[in-house]
C-alpha cells in the first residue's frame, strides 16, 4: 500500500466519521421529547376510564407480605383509586402508564439518546423537576418507538438509590395496556431488621436509628387482569375515595 492510498483511506474514514456524527446530531435535533410524549399520551387519549385487578407480590429485604389483590381505577385526567382488603403497597409508576401521572407539570423533559433493544428502537427521555427538589430525583423513560408505550422507567434519587420499572403490555380493545409490571428496588437505606418482642426488648421501636441498616433491594411484581376500559366510572366513585 502506497502513502497516497493510506492518506486517501484516512481521508475517507474521517469523512465517514464526521458524516456519522453530523447525522447523529441532526437525528437528535429532530427528536422532540414533547412530541414523543404527545405520541405516548395519544395512545391513551381515547381511554376515559380504566379499571383492573392487580395481583401484587412483594419480595423485598426485611419485608414480607402475602400476595395481594388490588382493584385499581383511573379516570381522566388524574383521578385514581385503589382498593384492597387490608394493606398493600403499589409502585407509584407502572399501574397506568400515562406520562402525566408521574411527570411533574413543571418538569423539564430532555431527549437523551435512542437505543435498540431486542430489535426495537427506544427513545430515552430524561425528566428533571424544574423546582429544586430536596431529593434531587431524576426519571428516565424508555419509549418504544413502534407502539409508543413506556416500556422502562428508572427513578433515581441522588445519594439514595434507584428503582427500575419494567412494563409488559398486551392489547386490549386495540390499546396497549399493562399486562405485568416489575419494579426492581435498589436503595441504600432499607427497612431495619426489627426483631419480634423479647424479654430483653419487649417493645421494638421503629423510630430508634439502627446501627447497621441493610440496603433496600428486591422486586415488586404486578400482574393485571380483568381490565375494563371506558366503562363510564362516575366521578362520585373517586370523590368517596378522596374523603
Amino acid at each position, binding site marked *: 500500500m502506497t502513502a497516497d492510498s493510506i492518506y486517501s483511506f484516512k481521508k475517507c474514514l474521517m469523512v465517514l466519521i464526521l458524516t456519522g456524527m453530523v447525522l447523529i446530531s441532526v437525528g437528535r435535533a429532530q427528536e422532540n421529547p414533547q412530541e414523543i410524549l404527545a405520541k405516548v399520551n395519544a395512545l391513551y387519549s381515547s381511554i376515559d376510564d380504566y379499571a383492573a385487578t392487580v395481583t401484587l407480590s412483594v419480595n423485598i429485604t426485611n419485608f414480607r407480605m*402475602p400476595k395481594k389483590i*388490588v382493584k385499581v381505577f383511573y379516570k381522566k385526567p388524574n383521578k385514581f383509586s385503589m382498593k384492597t382488603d*387490608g*394493606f398493600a403497597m403499589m409502585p407509584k409508576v407502572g399501574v397506568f402508564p400515562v406520562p402525566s401521572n408521574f411527570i411533574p407539570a413543571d418538569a423539564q423533559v430532555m431527549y437523551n439518546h435512542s437505543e435498540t433493544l431486542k430489535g426495537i428502537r427506544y427513545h430515552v427521555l430524561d425528566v428533571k423537576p424544574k423546582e429544586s427538589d430536596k431529593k434531587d430525583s431524576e426519571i428516565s423513560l424508555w419509549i418504544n418507538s413502534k407502539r409508543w408505550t413506556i416500556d422502562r422507567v428508572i427513578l433515581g434519587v441522588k445519594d439514595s438509590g434507584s428503582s427500575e420499572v419494567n412494563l409488559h403490555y398486551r392489547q386490549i380493545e386495540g390499546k396497549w395496556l399493562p399486562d405485568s409490571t416489575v419494579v426492581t428496588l435498589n436503595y441504600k437505606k432499607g*427497612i431495619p431488621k426489627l426483631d*419480634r418482642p423479647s424479654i430483653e426488648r419487649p417493645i421494638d421501636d421503629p423510630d430508634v436509628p439502627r446501627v447497621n441498616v441493610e440496603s433496600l433491594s428486591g422486586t415488586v411484581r404486578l400482574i393485571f387482569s380483568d381490565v375494563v376500559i371506558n366503562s363510564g366510572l362516575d366521578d362520585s366513585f373517586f370523590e368517596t375515595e378522596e374523603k
Partner: protein
Amino acid sequence: MTLLLKATWYEIIKIASKWRTYIGFITIAILIPVIMFLVRKYGFGVQDNALNSMKGSFVFVGSLVNGLIVSYFLMNVLWVHFPFFIVLVAGDVVSSEGAAGTFRIWLTRPISRFQVITAKFIATFVYTAAIVLFLGLLSVGLGMLIVGGGDLFVFDKGILILSQGEALYRFLIAYLLAVCVQMTVASLCFLFSSLTSNSVGPIIGTYATLVVMFILSMLKIDALKVIHPYLFTSYFDVFFAPFSDPIPWQEIAGDVGKLGIFILVFYLASAISFIRKEITT
C-alpha cells in the same frame, strides 16, 4: 376421681364467689374499650415510622392501623402488669383457707390432701386460662369491632404482614401460650400460698420474684447469661413466637416444655408442703 372433680368444681365456685376474682375482668373490660376508642380517634403512627424508607417509590393502599395491631401491642401487658391479676387470686387460693381455719373441717372428709391441693391447683388454672382468654377475646374482638379488621403488621426479622385470617389463627396460638406463661406465675404464687396463711405474702413474694427475674433477664451483662436458662421469665416471650413466619414450632415446644417443668415443680412443691402442713394449730 369423682371426689377430685367435685372438689375442683367447689374450688371454682369459691374463686368465683370472691370479689377479688373480678378485679382483673373489670379492669380489662374498662381498659380495652377505652384504648380501642382512643386509637380509633387519634390513630397509631406505626405505619409511618416503619415504612418510611419506601414512601418515595410506593403508594400505600389501605391502612395497617386496625384492631389487630392494637391487640398485638397490648400483648405487652402480659410481661409485668397482667400477672398482678393472676397473683391476686392464686395467692389467696390456699392461704385464705389456712387463715380461716376451714381446712380443719374439710380435711376430716374422705378426700386426700393431695386431691385437695390438686383441686385448688386446677381451679387456679381455670381462673388463669379464663382471664387470659378474656383479655385475648376482648382485645381482638373489640379491636376489630371498634378500630376495624385488616392485615396485621408485626416485627419479625424486619416487617412481616399477615393476612387477617392468618393473624387470628396466630392470636389464638399466642393466647394459648400466654395461658402457659401466666400459669407459671400462678403456680409460683400457688406454692407461696401453700406455705403461708395470709394472701398478701404470696402476692408480694411472687411479684418480687418476677421483678428480680426480669431485672436479671434484661440487664445487658454477659456474665448473667449463664443463669438465664434457669429463670422462667426467659421463656415468657414465647407468646410472641407465633407471629413469626414460619411459626417456630420447635422453639415454642422447647419453651413450653421448660415452662411446663417449672409449673410441675411448683405444683409438686405445693403438694408436698400442703401434705406436710400442720393444720391443727
